[in-house]
C-alpha cells in the first residue's frame, strides 16, 4: 500500500508539472498583450518597453517559462485585472461559496441517486427500473444552463416559492466571515434568519447541480448492486432464511457501496464543471462565476491561475478516490505489480 501511494504521488507530481506547461501555453495563445493590460491604454511606447524588460517578456520562451515556474513555487499567480487583487487571494475568497453549493448538490445527488439505483437493481427490468433509467438519461441530457433558467422561470418568476438568484437577500447582513460558507457561518453566529434565507437561496442552484451528478451515481449504484446480488454469499444469506429486506440492507448494499464511493469522488470533480454554468445563471458568487468572468474579459492571470488550480484539485480528488478505493477493496493492490 505504501508503495502504491508513493507511485501515485510521483505520477501526481508529473501531472502537476504538465498542468503548469499546458497553462503556460494557454497564456501564450491568449490574444491580448499582457503588457498593454498592465501599462494601461495611455502608456507611451517607452514605458511599455521598460515594462517589457521588468516583467521579462523580452526574454526567450524557456526563460519566461522558468520564471513562471519560479513564481508558481512561491504561490504567486499574479494579479487579477478584474478585481485588482492577487489571483490566489481571489480563489481562496470565492472557493467556499462553490464548495458549499457543491456539497449541498452532492447531498441531493446521494440522497436521491443511491436509492434510485438500488431500487432499480432489486426490481430489475420492472417498470420502475425502466422509469429510473429514462429519468437518469434525461438528467444527463439536460443542458444545465437551460434547466436553471426553466426552474427560475417557474419557481421564482411565476410561483415565487423560491428567492431570486444570489446567495442572500440584499436586506440581510452577512454573518462574520469564518469559513466563507454562509450556512456554517450563520450557525456559528447564531443568526437563524440568515441561515434560513441562505438555505432557500441555495435550493435551486444545488438542485440543478445535483441532477448533474445524480444520474452517474444512480447508474453505478445499480450496476454494482446487480453485481453483488448475483454473488454466492447473497444466495447463502437467502438460503439461511433471511428476509429479502435484510439480505439487501445487511449483505448486498454495503458491498455495492465501494464502487459507488469512487463515483461520488469523481462526481465532486464533475460538479466543479457544472458550477461554471450554474453559478453564472444563479449569480452565485463562487469560483465558477469568477472563472467565467475571467474567460469573458480575458483576465489572463485569473484564467491561467484558476484553470491550473481547478486541474490540480481535480487530480488530487482523483488521487484520494483511488486511494480510498484501494483501501476499501483489498483486491486492487494487484495493480502494484502491473506497472
Amino acid at each position, binding site marked *: 500500500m505504501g508503495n502504491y501511494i508513493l507511485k501515485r504521488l510521483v*505520477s501526481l507530481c*508529473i*501531472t502537476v508539472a*504538465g*498542468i503548469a*506547461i*499546458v497553462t503556460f501555453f*494557454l*497564456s501564450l*495563445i*491568449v*490574444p491580448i498583450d499582457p503588457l498593454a493590460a498592465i501599462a494601461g491604454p495611455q502608456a507611451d511606447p517607452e514605458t511599455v518597453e521598460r515594462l517589457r524588460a521588468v516583467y521579462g517578456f523580452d526574454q526567450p520562451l524557456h526563460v519566461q517559462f522558468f520564471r513562471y515556474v519560479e513564481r508558481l513555487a512561491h504561490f504567486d499567480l499574479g494579479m487579477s485585472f478584474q478585481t485588482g487583487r492577487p489571483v490566489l487571494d481571489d480563489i481562496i475568497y470565492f472557493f467556499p461559496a462553490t464548495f458549499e453549493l457543491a456539497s449541498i448538490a452532492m447531498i441531493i445527488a446521494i440522497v436521491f441517486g443511491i436509492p434510485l439505483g438500488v431500487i432499480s437493481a432489486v426490481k430489475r427490468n420492472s417498470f420502475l427500473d*425502466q422509469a429510473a*433509467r*429514462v429519468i437518469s*438519461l*434525461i438528467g*444527463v*441530457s*439536460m*443542458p*444545465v*444552463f*437551460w434547466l436553471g*433558467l*426553466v426552474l*427560475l*422561470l417557474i419557481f421564482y*418568476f411565476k410561483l415565487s416559492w423560491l428567492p431570486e438568484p444570489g446567495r442572500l437577500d440584499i436586506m440581510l447582513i452577512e454573518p462574520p466571515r469564518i469559513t466563507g460558507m454562509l450556512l456554517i457561518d450563520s450557525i456559528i453566529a447564531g443568526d437563524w434568519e440568515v441561515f434560513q434565507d441562505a438555505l432557500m437561496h441555495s435550493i435551486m442552484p444545488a438542485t440543478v447541480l445535483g441532477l448533474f451528478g445524480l444520474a452517474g451515481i444512480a447508474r453505478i449504484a445499480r450496476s454494482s448492486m446487480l453485481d453483488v446480488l448475483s454473488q454466492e454469499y447473497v444466495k447463502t444469506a437467502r438460503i439461511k432464511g433471511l428476509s429479502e429486506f435484510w439480505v439487501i440492507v445487511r449483505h448486498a448494499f454495503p458491498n455495492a457501496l465501494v464502487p459507488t464511493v469512487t463515483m461520488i469522488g469523481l462526481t465532486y*470533480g*464533475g460538479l*466543479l*464543471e457544472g458550477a*461554471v*454554468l450554474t453559478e*453564472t445563471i444563479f449569480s452565485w458568487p463562487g469560483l465558477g462565476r469568477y*472563472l*467565467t468572468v475571467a*474567460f*469573458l474579459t*480575458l483576465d489572463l492571470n485569473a*484564467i491561467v491561475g484558476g*484553470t491550473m488550480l*481547478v*486541474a*490540480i484539485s*481535480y*487530480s488530487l480528488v*482523483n488521487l484520494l478516490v483511488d486511494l480510498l478505493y484501494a483501501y476499501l477493496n483489498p483486491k486492487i493492490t494487484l495493480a502494484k505489480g502491473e506497472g
Partner: protein
Amino acid sequence: MTDTAREDALKPEVVRQMRRDARKRYFQDSYTLWKRNPITMIGTITIALLILIAFIAPLLATHDPYEQILADRLFAPSAEHWFGTDNLGRDIYSRVVHGSRLTLMIAILVAVISGPIGLVVGVLSGYLGGWVDEVLMRISDVFLAFPKLILAVAFAAALGTGLENAIIAISVANWPGYARMVRAETLAVRNSDYIQAIRVLGAGRLRIMVGHITPMCMSTLIVRVSFDMGAIILIAAGLGFLGLGAQPPSPEWGLMVSDGRDYLVDQWWVSTLPGLAILIVVLGFNLIGDGIRDILDPHQRQS
C-alpha cells in the same frame, strides 16, 4: 466428421460462406435486440429526424433565420411564428431548424478531429511501448487532469471566440479519452497469434500498426465516439451560452438560450424552446448510446 467433410470445411469458399453467415447472424441478433428495446428505437428515430431536418432545413423553415423585423419583435408563438419571435424580430422556429445544421456539424467535426488523434496516439503508444508510450500517456494524463468543460472553455477563450475555435477547443479536451481506450485495445491485440504470424512473415511495424491493429480498434472507437456525441453537443451549447462559442447572429442553440435570458419573465419562448431542442437531440444520442451498450453486451445476446 468424415475426411471429405473436413476437407470441404477448409475450402476457401466454404470458410467465406461460414463467415458471411456468422456476420449475418450477428447483424440479425443486433437488429432483434434493437427492435426489442423501445428506448433505442426512440433514440434512433430522434437522430434520424435531426439529420433529415438538417438536410432539408431551408424547406422546413418558414422564414429567413437571419432577417430582423423589429416591428415583429417578441411575438408569442402563433400560426405565423410557430415558436414566436426573438428580441430582434427573427422567427425562432426557422432559427431552431437552421441551428440543427450547426449542432450536427459541431458533433461530426469534433468526432472527426478528436477520434483520429486518439486513434494515432493510442496505437503508437500501445504498439511501440517503451518511452513513446510513457511520454504519450503522460501527455494524455495531463489533459485528463482538467475537467473537460473547463479545458474547452479555457481554450475557447484563449483561441478567441467563434465556432471554429470552439470546435478545436472541444477536440483538445476530447482526444485523451480516446487515446486511452485505443491503447488498451492495442495492448490486447498486439501479442495475439495472428499479429505474431504477420511479424514472423516480415511485416514492418508501420504496416502492422496501420493494416492490422488500427482496424481492430475502429469498432470500439466508433462506439465510444457515438456515446460521446451527446456530451459534445452539451459542451458546445455551453460554450455558446457563455458567449465563447458561436457568435451572433448565428442560430446556435446555446447562444439562442443566452439571448433570451433577459426576456425570460414575459417572453419565455425565446430562451426555453431552443433549449428544449438541445435536450431532445442530446437525449436522442444518449438513448442510442444506452441501447448500443445493451446490444454489445454479450450477456444480452445469449437470451
